[in-house]
């Protein structure tokens, strides 16, 4: 396909809409990760949680023929996995990183294993008639040119992602539990000395992160695609962790960082139609993550050097003035 067609594709309403759609499964787990990270218990298992929820949603919706039961089961599975992480970390005092890695590996292998048992296929769930979450066409808005295409016709998850960014923000900064959560993350001893139950707050934070990650997973298998594929999260849970730090550990910043990753991903999809090896194109979101983190680190370092340089200049000027007098 010629380049100008690709470029036209990029500067279109459909492309903008696809960015939102692709960002959604990063925004949701990133918000979850943000909550647990601010509570001081970083949830490395976002990836595995998404995978387990995506799988459970598909299977349950297929067997019950109910989308809603599928969603509910997917959420419960994700929250249960986080509860397991909370149990290992908070009750058994294991290292949360190691426990998280273990859960991720278990989720990868476990979903493939169960998929094979249920369908005889190790690759995907195409033989199951699983449910799909319908898209929402917003009345009136959908008829406005450009904006209608960009903003209307997404799945409930995309709208939820934006609504939840705001809700998480209110939760963290305006509610008692949110303040306790941030206090626990920053100075657990101080929080404990005021009678705040540190473990309980962290457990709640991990469960919330599991809930949000499960929405991200369900979004993948019941809206973005309508089947489960092995490893279908393909690193989104980890990109979500990167988005948290890139976003300065704030809800809005995390949202923006997640959308930037979505943009990189969508760009990759567009460029896929050029004569570039697809493996190279598929690398774009991950390379973008690394580049973004490097740029972030370099910028921080440059700021430090800049300040030092300014200080030296100022000193030199003062010294020059003094000797001129």
């Amino acid at each position, binding site marked *: 396909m010629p380049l100008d067609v690709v470029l036209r594709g990029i500067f279109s309403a459909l492309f903008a809409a696809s960015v939102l759609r692709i960002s959604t499964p990063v925004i949701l787990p990133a918000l979850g990760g943000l909550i647990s990270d601010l509570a001081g218990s970083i949830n490395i298992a976002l990836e595995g949680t998404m995978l387990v929820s995506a799988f459970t949603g598909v299977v349950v919706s297929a067997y019950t023929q109910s989308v809603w039961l599928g969603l509910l089961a997917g959420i419960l599975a994700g929250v249960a996995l986080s509860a397991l992480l909370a149990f290992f970390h908070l009750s058994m005092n294991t290292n949360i990183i190691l426990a998280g890695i273990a859960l991720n590996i278990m989720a990868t292998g476990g979903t493939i294993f169960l998929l094979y048992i249920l369908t005889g296929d190790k690759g995907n769930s195409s033989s199951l008639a699983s449910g799909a979450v319908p898209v929402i066409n917003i009345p009136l808005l959908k008829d406005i040119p450009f904006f209608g295409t960009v903003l209307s016709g997404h799945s409930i998850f995309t709208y939820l992602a934006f609504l939840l960014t705001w809700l998480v923000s*209110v939760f963290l900064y*305006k*509610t*008692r539990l949110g*303040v*306790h959560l*941030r*206090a626990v993350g*920053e*100075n657990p*001893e*101080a*929080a*404990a*000395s*005021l*009678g*705040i139950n540190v473990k309980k707050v962290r457990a709640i934070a991990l469960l919330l992160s599991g809930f949000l990650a499960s929405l991200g997973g369900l979004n993948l298998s019941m809206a973005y695609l309508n089947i489960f594929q092995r490893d279908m999260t393909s690193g989104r849970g980890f990109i979500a962790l990167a988005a948290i730090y890139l976003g300065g550990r704030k809800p809005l910043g995390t949202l923006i960082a997640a959308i930037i990753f979505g943009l990189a991903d969508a760009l990759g999809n567009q460029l896929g139609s050029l004569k570039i090896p697809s493996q190279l194109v598929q690398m774009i979101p991950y390379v973008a993550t690394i580049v973004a983190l490097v740029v972030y680190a370099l910028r921080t370092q440059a*700021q*430090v050097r800049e*300040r*030092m340089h300014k*200080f*030296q200049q100022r*000193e030199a000027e003062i010294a020059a003035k003094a000797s001129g007098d």
Partner: protein
Amino acid sequence: MAALIEMREIVKIYPNGVVANDGVNFSVDRGEIHALVGENGAGKSTLMKILYGMERPTGGEILLDGQPVHFHSSNDAIAAGVGMVHQNFMLVPSFTVAENIVLGQEPLRNGLLDQAEALRVTRELSQQYGLRVEPEAVVDSINVGMRQRVEILKTLYRGAQVLILDEPTAVLTPQETQELFAAVRKLVDQGKTVIFITHKLREVKEISNRVTVMRSGKVMGVVQTEDATRESLARMMVGRDVFLQVNKPPVTRGKKVLEVHNLSYVSETGRTMLHNVSFNVYGGEVLGIAGVEGNGQTELAETLSGLRPAATGTASVNGKAILNTNPRTVRLSGVAHIPEDRLTNGLALTASIDENLIVDRYFRPPFHRGLFIDYKVVEKQSADLIQEYGIRTPNGKLPVKSLSGGNMQKVIVAREFTSDPALLIAAQPTRGIDVGATEFVRDQLVKQRTDGKAVLLISADLSEVMSLSDRIIVMYEGEITGVFPDAASVSEEELGLYMLGIKRQTKEEMEAVL
């Protein structure tokens, strides 16, 4: 008069078998200021943690107003009107003063936090008790004195009738200490009761009505303050006579060892932490740096020891430049460093005592031969140093973290003093260690100086700076604001004025004496 608080036969045995409290009886009357004194490890903190519900006693009972109480957590103690101000402040740095004060019991409106109410309550409490704070300032940006007032307000907000202050003056200047004492007296005037944990006996004399002295988990005595002297209290605390004065033989000043010129340091956040600092340290002298913590002393020690880059300036040891190199180069140039934070910078906690004693020399003969470390030599050195420095441990194989704070510091002191330095940088060398270990470390510092080494002493403990130093420099907001060529002839109050930035010498005045 019946006691407000009565702790009877309190026993606390930790799971590892340490007996922290061994049948302690402790009682406090309503409206008194009761000092609780003792060396580190005497069991004061444990006793107070039990009273505050943070620890459960193994045995014994607590009576509040004559009624037995059982605290299962700090919440229970807070509900019963007992509040505690911890030694290491329990504040959330990124929260504002008001947010910290109401944390845990935030006022709500429509289910969401009511910031306006939090600010109002903070202002009201602040006025009522004369504890000056800025309600909207972020805790990270306020000074130590104000942080402490925030801590006290926190307990008052929770309705504390009894306030436990754990070594509250450890980080304060003399003036701030006076301000704190005034506030404590005001609290008592308004009907509160204060328990004051300290090991500064002069403060005990100044502020308290009664004193309980503890040693190795037991109460050694309860006395009316007016009947006690500093010497009698010290004897009760340590169990022998203590020499509160440092014996410092006169020494003639040697040659210039450390020369610092226009040293500046800018922090990662862009704050100028050191600004054009210049001074020299000579062989055979202790140069003391006085100042409220956070006025650049940490940065000074760390730029000189190679842990931080300097923005401008030069520094040399015996003519050899040391700035902006690295710690090993600095050490090989003849600098030893007792770091302020011994748990992070001074020791590798999980490594053994043997290993910690060679971290600055393992790469040199005789410790290193061929490709490997010669552990026979290492163990021999270690055994000698454990003996010589009185490190209390069964052997050198144990991890350093199994030692008490005082013994940890002895490990550092043993290593640093035996590296044969030309310059010794000692930052907060006796912080948090008991009277016996403090006496030892101070004696060793003076001995190094008497042997002709240059010693740069940085300490927040003003009496330590005054008793050990030959010359004193005061630092305020990253600058040298006062130079006192004769440490013996300056008063604590005078230094305090410089430490608070109320007085400062002119450049000419300082150059005249430097």
